[in-house]
């Protein structure tokens, strides 16, 4: 699999390590009401879809940036990639 790195162009997926569902960017507030249940969901439960999946890849043997890669879990086709930093900043706005 080739991951289209937004800064470096197409890179072999072997250079990356995989973390999982991109929803892991949305870490719950530990001080909020119901934080225990929210953290249980966050740590353990996954949507685990068959089809398009947004997921976190770390360019460990490259520029060490975190990417959000959109990939089809049925065909392994990679549909796009962006810097996780951009995704997180956009979400804060």
């Amino acid at each position, binding site marked *: 699999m080739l991951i289209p790195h937004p800064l470096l162009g197409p890179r072999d997926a072997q250079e990356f390590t995989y973390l999982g569902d991109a929803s892991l960017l949305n870490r719950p507030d530990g001080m909020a009401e119901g934080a225990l*249940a929210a953290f*249980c969901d966050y740590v353990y439960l*996954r*949507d685990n*879809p068959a089809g398009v999946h947004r997921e976190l890849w770390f360019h460990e043997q490259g520029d060490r940036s975190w990417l959000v890669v959109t990939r089809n879990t049925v065909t392994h086709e990679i549909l796009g990639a962006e810097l996780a930093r951009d995704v997180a900043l956009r979400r804060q706005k």
Partner: protein
Amino acid sequence: MRFSGFRVIAEALTGHKGWKPLWRNPDPQPAYDYVIVGGGGHGLATAYYLAKTFRKARIAVLEKGWLGSGNIGRNTTIIRSNYLLPGNEPFYEFSMKLWEGLEQEFNFNAMVSQRGILNLIHTDGQRDAYRRRGNAMLLAGADAELLNRDQVREMAPFLNFDNARFPIKGGLVQRRAGTARHDGVAWGYARGADLHGVDLIQNCEVTGFRIENGRVLGVETSRGYIGAGKVGVAVAGNSSRVMAMAGMRLPIENHVLQAFVSEGLKPLIPGVITFGAGHFYVSQSDKGGLVFGGDIDGYNSYAQRGNLPVIEDVAEGGMALMPMIGRARLLRAWGGIMDMSMDGTPIIDKTPVGGLYLNAGWCYGGFKATPASGYAFAHLLATGQTHDTTRFMRLDRFERGYVIDEKGMGAQPNLH
């Protein structure tokens, strides 16, 4: 129709005209007492033990493809009970004991071959860990034996004992472990279930659950609605997709695990051997092919095929362990979809929906568990009570903080 040596000879002398199909191919009835979703190893074993051991009832197994078309036909056929934790080891030892009597039990040749499993030791720390594991196995009634380097050499002289980075210093052996014919297991359970009146319904995909007032009433399928008193779901590889139709999210990710077989060779490998310094395990099939595998690919996948980097990694593990494997040609490689649970341990439990039960999260380890999984799931469905060996394998163990983390690595879905 019973199988026996006499029967084989009689058929041989009469032109094999007396063999009949092993099971019926019935159309679904409007309703059953029990509906098992998933006609793989665990679903068929569940139906078998439910019908034979627990109660006479109207039972159906619904399978979207053909019987045994999932991971029961895609694994590396290893059976063993060499686990450490009290939440696991009694269950797998129960399974091992069921394997030992399985062929007599369902009168079918599952080719159970107890040639042993050898886990290699490469460091002093690993020896301590394996000694502890061996003691845990003995406490649960399993067999375990710690071997020194010379004893390992006697058993498997072809291993690379003097690898500069990973010298072999000994091994933990379980002699009762071994392999079984994976398809034969599915067929044996299917035939046994059919003989006890279970309807095995193929090409029947479950497309939804009918749930009212928090209780399941039946399942919508590609062959119409089927009412059910209780529904048991045993669809490892698709658990999240199926349970999402009942409004549930599971502590599971699906990953692809690859396996490989070489060309047929003369008898070479005594039993199963696992590399202790990398992830590589190998056995030899009765046809002579070396059957081996290693890590999962490591990303969410529902494709029953993997990618080349892991093939390279597995091949490197094989070369480090037994360099002669480099002379064998690879015949086939394939992939299966694993339910990777968040602590590496399966789930056999009731769900928040009344009458709906779940058997999932088998990670790499589903094949060896087939008999005990079926027995325990049937016990749960029939009695509403958890079988003693699966009382820790609960669905709510994650939120309660009672994970069964065999590897001690915390919450991540890439464990064994």
